[in-house]
């Protein structure tokens, strides 16, 4: 009986470690270089002047609504940062263009609509803030 208990504990511990290892990179910020920019027209919504969170979601994605709320909240803390949510199952063109493999996946666009960072999996607040470092605030625009 004791052996059995130990084996059960061992298996559950292994499963826990496996899960924690698999999810360690969730929401981690990756700086990327992708050529070409994405326009507001392509996205179907207006980009942010400084930066844009483009979140790819699907109807079945359990963590997506929470992530959208979180990113909208973070975006509101900064000047000129927008959040756009895209249904990946409807915009397969965008999902394939950006290699969206899972949801939520969040692309960070800079002021020119160029992808500068991405997060795969639900990010934390600090990860979302960290990702905006890739799109720094703009110096004074238009000083005539």
């Amino acid at each position, binding site marked *: 009986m004791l052996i059995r208990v130990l084996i059960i504990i061992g298996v*559950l511990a292994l499963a*826990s470690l496996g*899960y924690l290892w698999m999810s360690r990179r969730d929401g981690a910020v990756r700086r990327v270089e992708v050529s070409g920019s994405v326009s507001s027209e392509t996205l179907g919504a207006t980009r942010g002047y400084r930066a844009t969170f483009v979140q790819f979601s699907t*109807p079945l994605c359990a963590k997506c*609504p929470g992530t959208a709320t979180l990113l909208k909240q973070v975006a509101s803390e900064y000047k000129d940062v927008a959040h756009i949510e895209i249904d990946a199952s409807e915009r397969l063109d965008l999902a394939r263009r950006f290699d969206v493999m899972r949801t939520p996946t969040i692309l960070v666009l800079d002021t020119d609509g160029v992808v500068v960072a991405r997060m795969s999996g639900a990010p934390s607040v600090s990860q979302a803030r960290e990702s905006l470092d890739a799109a720094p605030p703009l110096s004074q625009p238009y000083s005539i």
Partner: protein
Amino acid sequence: MTHESQAPLANPASTDVRIDVRGPRFGAAVTLVLALIALLLGATVAGVVLMAVLAVLFVPGAIVGPQATLQASLFKRFVLPRLAPTTETESFRAPRFAQQIGLAFSVLAVLFGALDSSVGFFIFAGFVTVASFLNAVFNFCLGCEIYLLAKRSTTRHA
């Protein structure tokens, strides 16, 4: 597993039912307790009967969805009133698939147990235990992930 509100989706043609995300997690905790006891009892009559009970509990979930199970009514009646009101909902489809997997594996455990195969019993009861453990403790639904992977690979691309 609570107010099954019909939330309008991007695709209006599909009738989706949204459930409180905490409901299936509570159901997983119930499953975990039963499956653990079954593992400790082993492929004895008591253990097999317990897995059979678990299989029966999975049946309404496998057909309709987790919101139709006995665990869900317990959740709605005793647990939900003590929690903060529902803020986060999810589609019932992926959790329902997870219930179907749970049903299949419990039935297999019962079959192997009834045929006196301890190894088979432990393997399938073990799977149910691990899956319900991950769901209850880490809020990670293994069946849901499999469902989503299967959907992704079978959907025709535009």
